[in-house]
């Protein structure tokens, strides 16, 4: 209860700061528009205004303050403007429409899920190989760890061009980038998980005369589940970033990344912010969904 109150307070403060920040950020543009509309602006000289800070301008021209929350192309849109844009582009539009955020979100989400699925399956398979083969462990594992320190995003434009030149385009290149980004967290987490049974438990299975396969299915795999889910949560967030970044360099016309890029070309700040919040909501839902699955699975296994 107390923590809920605290979270709500922090959120309220953030929204309040946001509204307050809109005033100095947008006041320059508002005053230019007001001057054109015939209002008396203090100081009247546009060049002098450019050198002044937003706060002092707002203090001198209090009448213009409400306008800073209602501009069409503000430098910083007010929270309600973003909320209205989100509502308009999700609920009010048909989801097949090119202007619907649901449509763009689905384009990105489908690439994310496909890539996440591929990355997870490959990652788990490689982890199984690493745990059972000493050679793979010694040769692949150091590179898997090093690869986490590399900004893999740098590969994204190239993957898209390469796949395009062999005739693959659309969802697959984005999914490849997503898969790549979720692959290594899954490998590292799964290896840790499959190694988590201690010597005592492994010895017990040896006294049962269990084969390597039985040890894997009955001890290692169940023991790895908490580690797997922890890495899946990291992996799906990384997958979404990968899909969004994969949409940037191609000039794609649909998807959340394409919305961001188009918004940045045409100065449509409200569109950028709504795409950003759309991506954030999508990420939160995906991580939350994995959290629910994790709880159900672990409960069923008697681990939570």
């Amino acid at each position, binding site marked *: 209860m107390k923590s809920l109150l605290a979270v709500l307070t922090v959120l309220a403060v953030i929204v309040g700061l946001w509204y307050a920040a809109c005033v100095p950020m947008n006041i320059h543009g508002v005053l230019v528009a007001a001057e054109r509309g015939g209002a008396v602006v203090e100081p009247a000289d546009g060049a002098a205004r450019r050198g002044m800070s937003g706060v002092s301008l707002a203090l001198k021209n209090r009448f213009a303050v409400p306008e800073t929350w209602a501009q069409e192309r503000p430098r910083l849109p007010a929270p309600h403007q973003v909320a209205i844009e989100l509502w308009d582009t999700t609920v009010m539009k048909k989801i097949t429409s090119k202007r619907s955020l649901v449509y763009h979100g689905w384009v990105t989400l489908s690439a994310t899920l496909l890539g996440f699925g591929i990355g997870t399956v490959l990652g788990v398979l490689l982890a199984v190989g690493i745990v059972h083969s000493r050679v793979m462990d*010694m040769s692949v594992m150091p590179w898997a760890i090093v690869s*986490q*320190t590399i*900004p893999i995003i*740098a590969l994204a434009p190239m993957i898209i061009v390469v796949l395009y*030149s062999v005739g693959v385009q659309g969802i697959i290149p984005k999914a490849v980038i997503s898969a790549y980004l979720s692959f290594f967290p899954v490998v590292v987490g799964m290896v840790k998980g499959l190694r988590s049974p201690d010597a005592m438990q492994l010895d017990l299975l040896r006294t049962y005369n269990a084969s390597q396969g039985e040890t894997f299915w009955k001890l290692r795999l169940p023991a790895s589940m908490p580690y797997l889910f922890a890495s899946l*949560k990291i992996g799906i967030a990384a997958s979404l970033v990968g899909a969004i970044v994969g949409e940037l360099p191609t000039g794609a016309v649909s998807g959340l990344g394409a919305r961001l*890029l188009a918004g*940045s070309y045409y*100065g449509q700040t409200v569109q950028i912010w709504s795409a950003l919040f759309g991506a954030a909501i999508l990420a939160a839902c995906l991580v939350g969904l994995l959290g629910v699955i994790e709880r159900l699975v672990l409960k069923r296994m008697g681990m939570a």
Partner: protein
Amino acid sequence: MMLVLVALLVWGAAWWLNTRLAEGPQAGTRPVRLAVPLIFGATILVVWELVVRGLEVPLVILPAPSLIAARFAGSLPILWADFVQTFVKGALSGYLIGCGAAFVMAVAVDRSEFLRLGLLPVGNFVAALPIVGTAPILVMWFGFDWQSKAAVVVVMVFFPMLVNTVAGLRETTAMQRDLMETYAASYWQSFFKLRLPAAMPFIFNGLKISTTLALIGAIVAEFFGSPTLGMGFRISTSVGQLALDMVWAEIVVAALAGTLFYGLVALIEHHVTFWHPSQRR
């Protein structure tokens, strides 16, 4: 076709050698532990070179490692300028500002129970979001030069660093804190002598996560506009010109920079938190 067969042979021979090394009597020793991954890495490069040449894969799909190396050696001044622009100016300054601000914020959060209860869930939530999407907004605010890249990096590293530092500052047990109280230690005394050292493993975890995020942020932000240099700019324009050897050269630079940056932070961690169980050998 000959070269592809040679590639297969090289792969088989190296794998056999690695198997011998990994399962041999010397397997645990340091030289072998170093040699095995290095042989594996070298094998991939050799096989890559042979397969690309053997199948005559066009340059636009996959350049051979030798071509990339030649391009790398031939355009050192450009690569260095891009590195300075993206890494030193954009990523590093953003990293320092973001981690510093997050640390100060974490100390403030740590002093207030209410702030901790309220800010930590929000911080945890924000840390999992695709914050790199803020790049177009920040490029719009701070202009095309490195300042906007640094701003993106600040936003990206802030929350992971904050969450880790706050968790670290709570790492001490009630018993240890009580002991400091019986010594009549002031808040700052117990902060510097007990809680900050205890938080170091967590702080370094945040710093290490942030190294990669910083480079990603700086490179992606350049896709939204940059002056005519920088790693992200070079990658996106070279892809447009189908100069994939240049793209790979930039990727090599990014990989080297990322690994060295991470390694440097890990090295400092090793010296600062030598007492921690995870550092024991």
